[in-house]
């Protein structure tokens, strides 16, 4: 073997792009991961629309219009649990040890992870939207409304993702990350206005639902798709994702650089 010298050091940006490429490759090789991501929301959409839709909203078509924006929120929030699991898996395999012993920008692997997450949110979101359209959902605000809603959706996914990256960095077993993640998320997602308006709920529950950030996100998504969104609703929906990014991003970076 003849010695191979080191080429000029690549830029931090080039390092990050390389990790983004890794995320894209993963989609090519493991397309079934998308199946996990979209199966539950598809089931929910179908079940709720056809079983409860008529009773809840008068017709299945009207209900679908109401449900779909919230299902999109549910999809990206549940998705971010999987990215925490993926991180925990990678860390357990020693893969990140190799990355950390390379002379590269220390946060590049992480930037790549975010690229993968955004792609996953986008693809899963588009699949759900596609199914909604096939079932007859017609967002009144048309394409601009849908694009606006998707930008908000990605911001929600990006913001909530930090929480699960923290879990992924702290917990060695991916299954525990998943169990913990869903334990926290189930009440948040179901005690929200995703499936029904809280009007008929008992007062204490309605108080919770009205304050639940998931409800704010859902309302803003609905309004964007309906073309009735105000700056206030959108800001309210963004409050939690922004707060989480500000608080948790530094925590994630610190945990990531910390030795294990």
């Amino acid at each position, binding site marked *: *073997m*003849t*010695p*191979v*010298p*080191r*080429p*000029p*050091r*690549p830029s931090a940006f*080039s*390092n990050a792009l*390389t990790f983004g*490429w*890794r995320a894209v*490759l*993963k989609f090519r*090789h*493991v397309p079934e991961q998308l199946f996990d991501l979209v199966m539950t929301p598809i089931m929910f959409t179908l079940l709720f629309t056809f079983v409860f839709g008529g009773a809840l909203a008068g017709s299945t078509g009207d209900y679908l219009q109401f449900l779909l924006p919230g299902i999109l929120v549910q999809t990206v929030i549940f998705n971010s649990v999987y990215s925490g699991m993926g991180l925990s898996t*990678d860390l357990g*395999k*020693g*893969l990140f*040890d*190799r*990355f*950390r*012993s*390379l*002379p*590269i920008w220390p946060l*590049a692997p992480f930037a790549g992870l975010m690229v993968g997450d955004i792609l996953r949110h986008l693809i899963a979101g588009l699949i759900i939207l596609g199914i909604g359209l096939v079932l007859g959902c017609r967002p009144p605000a048309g394409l601009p409304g849908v694009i606006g809603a998707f930008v908000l959706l990605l911001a929600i996914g990006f913001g909530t993702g930090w929480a699960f990256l923290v879990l992924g960095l702290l917990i060695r077993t991916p299954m525990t990350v998943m169990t913990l993640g869903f334990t926290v998320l189930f009440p948040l997602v179901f005690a929200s206005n995703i499936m029904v308006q809280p009007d008929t709920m008992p007062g204490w529950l309605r108080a919770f639902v009205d304050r639940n950030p998931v409800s704010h996100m859902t309302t803003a998504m609905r309004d964007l798709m309906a073309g009735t969104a105000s700056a206030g609703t959108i800001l309210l929906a963004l409050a939690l994702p922004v707060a989480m990014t500000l608080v948790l991003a530094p925590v994630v970076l610190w945990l990531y650089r910390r*030795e*294990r």
Partner: protein
Amino acid sequence: MQDDTGTAAIRARGLKKSFGDLEAVAGIDLDVPKGEIFAILGPNGAGKTTFMRLLATLASPDAGEAQVMGHDLASAPDAVRGAIAMTGQFASLDEDLTGRENLILLARLWGFRGRAARARADDLLSEFDLSDAAHRQVKDYSGGMRRRLDIAASLIVTPGVLFLDEPTTGLDPTARQKVWRLIRGLAGSGVTVLLTTQYLEEADQLARRIAVVDKGRKIAEGTSRELKSAVGSGFLHVALADPAGLDAATEVLETQLGHKVQRNAEDTRLSVMAETPEAATAAITALLAAGHEVADFALGSPSLEEVFFALTGTPPEDDA
């Protein structure tokens, strides 16, 4: 390529690392000259991995200092990372990607672009006998193939020092031989190799010098021959026809030879240091006189297992 001043590839002084109350590395000094294969031999939990992670900048020491290829761990960690490569105890590959994609990923991270990165990956695949599996996902690789790819992934750029943490643990004998050949080839091309192992035979086979580590401390260091002679030149191995007499026979041998007797794991053989052939003969005679039936005996040099026993008072654990 690297800083070639001086001859030490690794120079460590008093390196320490604790996890809570546990001193995983309790003050280790080490000098490894350039171009050598150096083995760190120790049982599970001895602190081998932790020591290697300190040298690879993956963990920072609580005390002590070290230079790798002339770069100081504390003041120039990035220069150290540029001069080393590490193949950890557990495969550090992306199982979902193909072997070739794993190598291209790393080649790009090192700074090879486009075509050059692909060419580097293909060269390594053919050098490591993996060309046929280039387009298969790593999760479908055998243990031996994985290990080879993992080592190839450490050689994108020829490192000054290659750290190999238990490179053959869990491999079958054929795969192990293949990895051994690879390691010898690397050292032949001038790469310094620091490897850890629980296999005494592996250290003996590969390394010019061996450091024996136990409970975070270096308890001996030298060539395999030096370690053996430090412990004693000759060992008497005795197998009894009737295993029931093992305890009594142990007593006879210890009285006769004045050294502690070691039993093998299967309780079929006794080994004890014998200063001279005459002393060994006298001990066998005494055994026979005491009524033991000796099925087999031999006088040989100590195995590293016996070296380890003599140094620590406990046999190395065999579980991985």
